[in-house]
């Protein structure tokens, strides 16, 4: 069965506590469209996307190049706003926010994990983590150090990125994403730039984070990584196709239950 063959619209799901999917949604899109003005007219990068992701869920976003993955990630990451439709993050409609409010909101709600790590080359691992604290509120070295210990880099805090392996750099990136305790981790090809050994380390780390209740939205081309997620949202030509959970059913949490 291919992505284009099955189109599943996610609906309210019952959970053992009686909460519905919409009640527990930390990300909710309703008929979200994003269009850009191009030279040849308006280009629809994402069309009429409707789905929700509940707190504590691990969702993989897949699709070929040009399918709208980046547009979707930008929207969920509050780096962009929809042209039409409603996008709620943690029950707040991002369309109604000013640019400054959106910056603040992004610092509070989203932790980014990049394929290319995007660490500041002249700052140490510790300082790179503290950078996220600085733009969020205020720096706390002990807390940043603890975040690095949590990703297994307690002995590499003073190393600059060029002194770290790819896997270690990605773990610094994960520590930085976690440091402000955001409800959503947005991972863009988190293992796309890693060898198999490091890919395994990062995958285990994400699994660990998921077990601890983090909501993870992960863009990936890697079927193995996508297989770790509970649900796959497939994109093609700007359209969303959602697959049901392939693994064990996730226990739905309210966003406020996040650890």
């Amino acid at each position: 069965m291919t992505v284009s063959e099955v189109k599943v619209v996610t609906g309210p799901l019952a959970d053992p506590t009686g909460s519905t999917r919409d009640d527990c949604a930390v990300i909710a899109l309703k008929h979200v469209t994003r269009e850009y003005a191009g030279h040849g007219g308006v280009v629809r990068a994402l069309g009429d996307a409707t789905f929700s992701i509940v707190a504590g869920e691990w969702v993989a976003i897949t699709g070929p190049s040009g399918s709208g993955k980046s547009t979707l990630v930008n929207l969920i990451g509050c780096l962009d706003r929809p042209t039409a439709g409603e996008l709620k993050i943690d029950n707040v409609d991002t369309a109604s926010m000013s640019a400054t409010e959106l910056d603040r909101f992004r610092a509070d709600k989203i932790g980014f994990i990049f394929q290319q790590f995007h660490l500041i080359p002249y700052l140490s691992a510790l300082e790179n983590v503290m950078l996220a604290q600085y733009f969020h509120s205020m720096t706390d070295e002990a807390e940043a150090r603890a975040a690095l210990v949590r990703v297994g880099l307690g002995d590499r805090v003073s190393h600059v990125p060029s002194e770290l392996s790819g896997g270690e750099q990605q773990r610094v990136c994960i520590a930085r994403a976690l440091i402000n305790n955001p409800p959503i981790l947005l991972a863009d090809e988190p293992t796309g730039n890693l060898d198999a050994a490091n890919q395994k380390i990062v995958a285990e780390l994400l699994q660990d984070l998921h077990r601890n209740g983090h909501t993870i939205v992960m863009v990936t081309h890697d079927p193995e990584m996508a297989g770790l997620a509970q649900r796959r949202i497939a994109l093609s030509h700007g359209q969303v196709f959602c697959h049901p959970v392939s693994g064990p059913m996730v226990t739905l949490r309210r966003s406020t239950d996040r650890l």
Partner: protein
Amino acid sequence: MFFRLLMESFRRQRRRKMLAGVAILLGTTAVTAMLALATTIGDRIHKELAVYGANIVVYPKADLLDVKVGGVDLKPASGGAYLKESELAKLKTIFWGNNITGVSPELPALMAIARKAGDPLIAVNAVGYWFDHDFNTFKTGAPTLHPWWRLEGSWPIPRSNPDSRSVVVGTNLAKKLGLKIGDTFVTQGTQSAPSSRLTAIVAGIVTTGGEEDNEILLTLHDAQAYVGANDAVRRVEVSARTKPEDAFARVDPDSLSPKQREIWYCRPYANSIAYQIREAIPGAQAEQVRRVEQSEGNVLKRISGLMWLISAAALLAAGFAVSAAMATAILERRGEIGLMRSLGASKGSIALLFYAEAGLLALIAGTIGYLLGSGLAAWLGARIFAGDGVAAEAVLIPVLLPVVVALALVVAIAGSSPSIRTALRMDPSTILREDA
């Protein structure tokens, strides 16, 4: 973290920052030099134009009055009124007293001389002057106010022997009488005591290109003694630092409102200084020598205009150079900008970081530019106003430092703004993808 990012940007982008810094440095150096010169140019131009003589002349008010009886002018040819030498000290007490830089009183006398006793007498004009007079805070006299006078020998020294006088003879008169330095001649008594005789010793021969070439120059006290008018002065030349004349300078102060008159009075126009001299010395008429004042004003106006033009051009060029250097520097760091935006940094906080970098650069480059510019001003001053005795400290004007640094800040911030605004307009997700 802010300072860490700030310092690292300087460490990592040393070349780019250096380029922008040098642009600011050159701009502020030029501006400092121009401002320093413009600030002191008034004094310098005044000194330069002082070679053309005094800018205020004081004489007895009585000389203005016509004394005619039955159509006959009864006023003595040499003028009958005198000012008092002792009252000249009051010149230093006027509101703009400190602007007075030279004073030269004169007292003319008609003298009958002969090479030696028994020779036929020749009538010559003599004028008494100060030559090296201690005028409270400075020494002044005719040589100071007439720097173009060329002297061979020495100026007359105050009388030490009651029977002889030390004099300087004008070059034409010296030739006519065959007098050389060290020669003596006799004067036929004095106007007050015609029967007495005194010996005069030629201390020097002066060439002035004026009437003085046919005259005898002696000390004011000797002239007073000869004329028999103690403390008398016929005319006083005054050199003062003045503000270039404008329309307001030429108004009649008595026609102004009290407030306007006070403003006029408190501006160092030659006219207002002359007015204050008239107030200070009873019976004195003081007037500006208009030609010198106008020359000074015209020169100052043109030089100031040129300096402002050079300053503006230097700052504009610096602004463009900073803009180009900062555009490259910021473009190199677009990945950082994208990351910061994704971490929730507001555009304002990122702009603050870049503006702080530009500001710090301006502070450093502006301060160095101020020091270099002061040095340049000293050098230029010494070159342009050669022989003026200009020292470097003479143009190290502390009040210019904040002005120059502020200008450097304006240039750096204005130059950086387009690049910063462009960088902040970029879509962070696009930047991060491009940087990948």
